[in-house]
């Protein structure tokens, strides 16, 4: 008997996988289970515009015969009998099971009392605190912390960002890019405390490593995220910083797949877990094909963006922050950097500037990375070299 595809997690990846299954001709039963009550929405706007934007309309699910089970948590799974159990005790049978359980905000011990941002409900609470003159303390100079800092400044709040490392975005982007953001946040009046450890925090206080106590109207932590793997682990799947998957996004159990923020996969020889909206979509589409038995190599370049004030940042590929990084001398107030490996393969690029000023360049770099193009770094650095023509020549 056919029991169809069951997807656990109705976020960006699960939704994309469900629609991709239909677009690629899957006619069987299709159930999308989500712990959150709201119709699946995009997370990126939560920290940028603070607004809710749905991924698809309610009608799109019914038109495509996707059974949405929202507000339902999968509590356990029996791989032997191919059953998933929902909160409330209901059991659902599957032929193929897909984990798209995403990630949750990380909190280290001692800071459990502060706010974090992952869901629409978190955003509601945080936005209600960003009023003119409110003192907002943000722990962590990563993407979410910095986007919230910009949003809070726009709302007229007084903002302090406390970062343990010597610079902002220390794990994610090259220093040339981080510097632009650092200058801009300072210019906008955000108080940046770098090299500053936090040992404790509550709803209204942050305690620094040197014992200093700072008071705020609200404290928000943006200190990374953790893959949502407890269910997978309990069911017996291999988990290594994310649910371990192969090139087809298959897990260690038969007929069971995982994709998006919750999975850990091989990207050109390195095991990675991405936290990227575009990757969640790319992998959702890819895993749909795998479920349908159409295995194709996954060669989508990791890609990420962030918006702060009128600045937009885009990153393609994965930088080795310990290795040399080249700059393309754009000379127009934008910053574009890139990196090649020892074989002169282009491996990563990033750009920042007002609006979409660097997007076309980064898109071309992304395509060169995808094609694993051997490049002459000197030519790429030279702004008189037309990137589009370089791409056409490959």
């Amino acid at each position, binding site marked *: 008997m056919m029991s169809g595809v069951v997807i656990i997690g109705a976020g960006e990846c699960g939704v994309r996988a469900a629609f991709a299954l239909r677009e690629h001709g899957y006619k069987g039963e299709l159930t999308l289970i989500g712990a959150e009550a709201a119709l699946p929405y995009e997370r990126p706007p939560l920290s940028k515009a603070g607004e809710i934007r749905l*991924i698809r*309309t309610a009608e799109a699910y019914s038109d495509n015969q996707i059974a949405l089970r929202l507000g339902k948590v999968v509590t356990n799974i029996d791989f032997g009998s191919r059953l998933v159990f929902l909160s409330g005790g209901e059991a659902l049978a599957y032929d193929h099971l897909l984990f798209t359980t995403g990630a949750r905000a990380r909190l280290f011990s001692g800071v459990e009392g502060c706010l974090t941002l992952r869901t629409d409900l978190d955003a509601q609470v945080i936005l209600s605190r960003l009023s003119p003159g409110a003192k907002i303390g943000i722990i962590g100079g990563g993407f979410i912390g910095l986007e919230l800092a910009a949003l809070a400044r726009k709302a007229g709040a007084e903002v302090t960002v406390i970062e343990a490392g010597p610079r902002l975005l220390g794990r994610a982007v090259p220093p040339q890019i981080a510097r632009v953001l650092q200058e801009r946040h300072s210019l906008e009046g955000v108080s940046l405390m770098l090299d500053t450890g936090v040992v404790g925090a509550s709803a209204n206080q942050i305690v620094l490593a040197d014992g200093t106590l700072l008071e705020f109207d609200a404290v928000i932590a943006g200190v990374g995220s953790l893959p949502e793997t407890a269910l997978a682990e309990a069911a017996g799947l291999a988990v290594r910083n994310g649910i371990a998957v192969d090139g087809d996004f298959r897990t260690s159990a038969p007929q069971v797949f995982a994709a998006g923020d919750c999975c850990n996969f091989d990207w050109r020889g390195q095991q990675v877990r991405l936290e990227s*909206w575009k990757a969640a979509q790319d992998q959702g589409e890819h895993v749909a094909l795998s479920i349908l038995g159409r295995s194709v190599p996954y060669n989508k370049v990791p890609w990420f*963006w962030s918006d702060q004030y009128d600045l937009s940042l885009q990153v393609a590929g994965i930088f080795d922050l310990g290795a040399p990084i080249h700059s393309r001398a754009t000379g127009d107030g934008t910053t574009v950097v890139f990196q090649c490996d020892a074989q002169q393969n282009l491996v990563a690029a990033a750009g920042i500037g007002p609006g*979409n000023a660097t997007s076309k360049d980064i898109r071309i770099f992304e395509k060169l990375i995808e094609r694993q193009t051997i490049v002459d770094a000197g030519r790429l650095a030279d702004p008189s070299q037309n990137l*589009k023509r370089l791409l056409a020549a490959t």
Partner: protein
Amino acid sequence: MAWIDACSTNDIDAEDVIRFDHGGRTFAIYRNHEDGYFCTDGLCTHEDIHLADGLVMENTIECPKHSSIFDFTTGEVETPPACNNLHCYKTKVEGGRVLVDI
């Protein structure tokens, strides 16, 4: 609808796009890899982002913001996040000028 003289054929590089504003509306005019000229609404259907800042590859435009890909000869979405197709407008070339029916 009326034919409007939008630009010279040389105003757009091969495989590129320009923004064209007219009557309080904004459009994107494309030249493909075979010197065909096409016109669509100027803003992405995902968010209000000018497609003219995006990358043209043959008959497709990739949105500069979150990489939705549209076929500008039909307006169809090829790759999400956008869900809605772009509206297309007729074009013709006369005496080195690109005319659009908007």
